[in-house]
């Protein structure tokens, strides 16, 4: 079928839904998701959303601004960070009015707790800035936004898998998508298209991300000539459940939990003497890996302990019930009584589709925008997180910039004509699908190749990186790409063909792995989550700039955009 909408939104997480609420005030909006809206991975966000409400103790947006800049290791664009932090209080109050059941103080105000890297007085001590609903913050915000968007006539297309986002002569025309249940291909012509498709943690073997987090749309745009910004910066969350990668919120440390090594020491005191276990995630993850590498893992193994025993049963049941339940279900441990084995897990992509503060997708490092194309949320790079995101800033990012993108879309819709995706473009997509499905020979298995890719990236491009490791990746990726051509899809049917979709997703993952690893090899310094053993220091003289990776034929070219510095000059990053 062919549909015409003013705006197509890809993705129904927090960014997509907040944008949908805004854009549907003025135009017709369709939201496409390859899952069901309430199953988007925003639902897995646990700990909170940041904002200097000052409900528990004095706080200020200026301190939030400073913390975010410092947390980003000075790579975040300060104009954008200021926009976000100044809008945080309004954003959270608005969410509350939309129905989000935030946890409360005794007098009924929104409760707040400590979180990594959030401080008072420019780094003096941790501050209670995270607004939360126990450890289900993403879940409750996602539901509230979904519920409200339904009241505004947003049209949902659940289980629609995006296959192409055609950009013709610098204008985005809309979306071509497969209805998973029928296998039918649909064309969505639009004035404006917003990509809010989330992260791509499934590039790595151990991740907190959903199986659906495969970065399809980033890869599609990368192939279409849109640059990808700062892809070398991928956050490893310090506390993933050992062996599984399931997230254990930083809120656990915000409530008083501590990290302990094999010798029973609180090792974070060494690495971040002032805020200790509440240091930013990049530092805590490196500290954990260093403890393990130097033989101080628990029982000589490759994990450390997250100890919540000091918090007490009541706080755990009230404020951390979900992670307590994960511990009981998946590793048979009650965190009230025993420490939790943890290891860093691939968690969040700081990099992504470059945008300005109004969500417009940039076509180059000079700031030219693609007509009709917008991005927001984890798939986008504004950049407010720079080289390392602070906990609770991602939910804030999605809602603030989702809304701003929606507002900008309303302006844009007045001046843009509805795109028209021509049948030749659709034919091309159909032909590719047909080739995949009609192939009857092939010895390779997609599952095995996915495993190879994820292991490769985990071993050579995770918390610590170096030239030798990174140099091993391109050959291996080429091999995987070759082998991918030799995969034979057994399911030849049209309906709900997830085998076919998994192969398509794997191709996207390989594409993004190339962008990540080549950007990582290219940046010869250590900054935030990008830590090069062969270039241990931050190099502000040469690297106060964003990487723009561009696909040219089969090569990747690099260009650069200077970091916007307004208030805070780069300084030594100590906590």
């Amino acid at each position: 079928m062919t549909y015409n909408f003013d705006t197509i939104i890809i993705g129904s997480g927090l960014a997509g839904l907040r944008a949908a609420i805004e854009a549907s005030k003025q135009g017709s909006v369709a939201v496409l998701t390859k899952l069901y809206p309430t199953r988007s991975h925003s639902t897995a966000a646990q700990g909170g959303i940041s904002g200097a409400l000052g409900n528990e103790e004095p706080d200020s947006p200026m301190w939030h601004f400073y913390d975010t800049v410092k947390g980003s290791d000075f790579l975040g664009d300060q104009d954008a960070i200021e926009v976000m932090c100044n809008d945080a209080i309004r954003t959270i109050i608005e969410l509350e009015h939309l129905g989000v059941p935030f946890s409360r103080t005794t007098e009924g105000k929104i409760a707040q707790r400590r979180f990594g890297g959030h401080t008072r007085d420019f780094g003096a001590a941790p501050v209670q800035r995270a607004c939360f609903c126990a450890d289900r913050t993403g879940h409750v915000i996602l539901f509230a936004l979904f519920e409200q968007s339904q009241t505004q006539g947003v049209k949902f297309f659940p289980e629609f898998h995006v296959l192409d986002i055609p950009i013709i002569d610098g204008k985005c025309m809309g979306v071509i998508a497969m209805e998973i249940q029928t296998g039918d291909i649909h064309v969505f012509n639009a004035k404006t298209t917003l990509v809010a498709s989330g992260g791509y943690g499934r590039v790595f073997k151990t991740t907190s991300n959903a199986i659906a987090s495969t970065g399809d749309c980033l890869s599609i745009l990368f192939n279409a000539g849109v640059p990808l910004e700062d892809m070398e910066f991928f956050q490893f969350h310090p506390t993933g459940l050992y062996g599984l990668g399931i997230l254990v919120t930083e809120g656990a440390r915000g409530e008083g939990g501590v990290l302990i090594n094999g010798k029973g020491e609180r090792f974070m005191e060494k690495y971040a003497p002032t805020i200790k276990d509440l240091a930013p995630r990049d530092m805590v993850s490196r500290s954990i890996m260093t403890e393990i590498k130097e033989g101080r893992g628990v029982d000589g193994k490759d994990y450390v302990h997250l100890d919540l025993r000091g918090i007490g049963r009541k706080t755990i049941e009230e404020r951390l019930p979900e992670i307590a339940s994960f511990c009981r279900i998946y590793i048979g441990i009650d965190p009230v009584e025993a420490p939790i084995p943890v290891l860093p897990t691939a968690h969040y992509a700081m990099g992504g589709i470059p945008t300005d503060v109004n969500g417009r997708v940039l076509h180059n490092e000079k700031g030219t925008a693609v007509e009709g194309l917008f991005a927001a949320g984890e798939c986008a790079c504004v950049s407010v997180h720079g080289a390392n995101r602070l906990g609770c800033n991602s939910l804030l990012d999605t809602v603030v910039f989702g809304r701003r993108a929606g507002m900008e879309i309303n302006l844009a819709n007045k001046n843009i004509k509805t795109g028209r995706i021509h049948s030749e473009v659709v034919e091309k997509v159909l032909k590719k699908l047909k080739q995949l499905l009609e192939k009857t020979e092939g010895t390779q298995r997609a599952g095995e190749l996915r495993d190879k890719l994820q292991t490769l990236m985990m071993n050579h491009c995770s918390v610590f990186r170096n030239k030798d490791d990174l140099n091993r990746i391109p050959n291996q990726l080429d091999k995987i790409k070759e082998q991918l051509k030799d995969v034979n899809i057994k399911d030849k049917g049209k309906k709900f063909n997830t085998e076919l979709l998994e192969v398509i997703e794997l191709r996207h993952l390989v594409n993004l792995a190339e962008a990540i690893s080549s950007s990582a090899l290219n940046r010869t310094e250590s900054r935030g989550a990008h830590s090069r053993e062969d270039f241990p220091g931050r190099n502000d003289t040469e690297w106060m700039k964003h990487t723009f990776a561009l696909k040219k034929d089969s090569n990747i070219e690099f260009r650069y955009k200077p970091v916007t510095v307004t208030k805070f000059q780069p300084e030594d990053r100590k906590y």
Partner: protein
Amino acid sequence: MAVKQYKLKIKRFDPERNAHSRWEEFSLSMKPSHRLLDALAKIKDEIDGSLTYRRSCAHGVCGSCAMKINGKNGLACQSLFKDMPEFIVIEPLHGFPVVKDLVVDIKPFLEKNEEILPFLINNTPPPERERKQTPQEQNKILQAITCIMCGSCTSACPSYQRNNSYLGPSALVKAARFIFDSRDSAEEERLDKVTQSNGLWMCHSIYNCVEVCPKNVDIPAHIIKLKQLAVKRKILKQK
């Protein structure tokens, strides 16, 4: 930990190849810590790519992989082999049309929610700051907000299986989530909806729902509170 042999008997259905469902057995070696979802992925990756099921978060927060496991609804990602027998029977959720293998059409289930006005309604102008709500007030909805809409409860409900016009436990919990929210002002309208003939009174307290809820929501307790409220309102109106 040691791997062990398991036999998975899976109900398969491919509408493009056969009008009827069939059973297929797979033998797998799995670790006690493995999830049933890991086993399904293993079959898909290594034995039969056409095996079809929904999945996403893999740790019990998205609700995609609800299915019938040894006769009881649950999430495949929350079912560990250490807790399972060596012979495991897997079927799609009952009560919903089967699309393919373990995938059911959940649209009829989701549409039930729409009937109970599933969004916060408060027509007073919003204050400058948050609407106040004490922890005691919030306690009344803390369980209901954890629902992930996996469909396990409604699928397991005999009343729903007999008559699918029934709103079902999930939609009633959703109604309770708003009716008992101190910030919501549409109690009357919602009670009108849930006291219609397809609502509250079709619940006969069979308790299948609470047995299968992967988030341990005490669903009958919510329905009983709604019933009490409805009766009270009726009596007050008659007076």
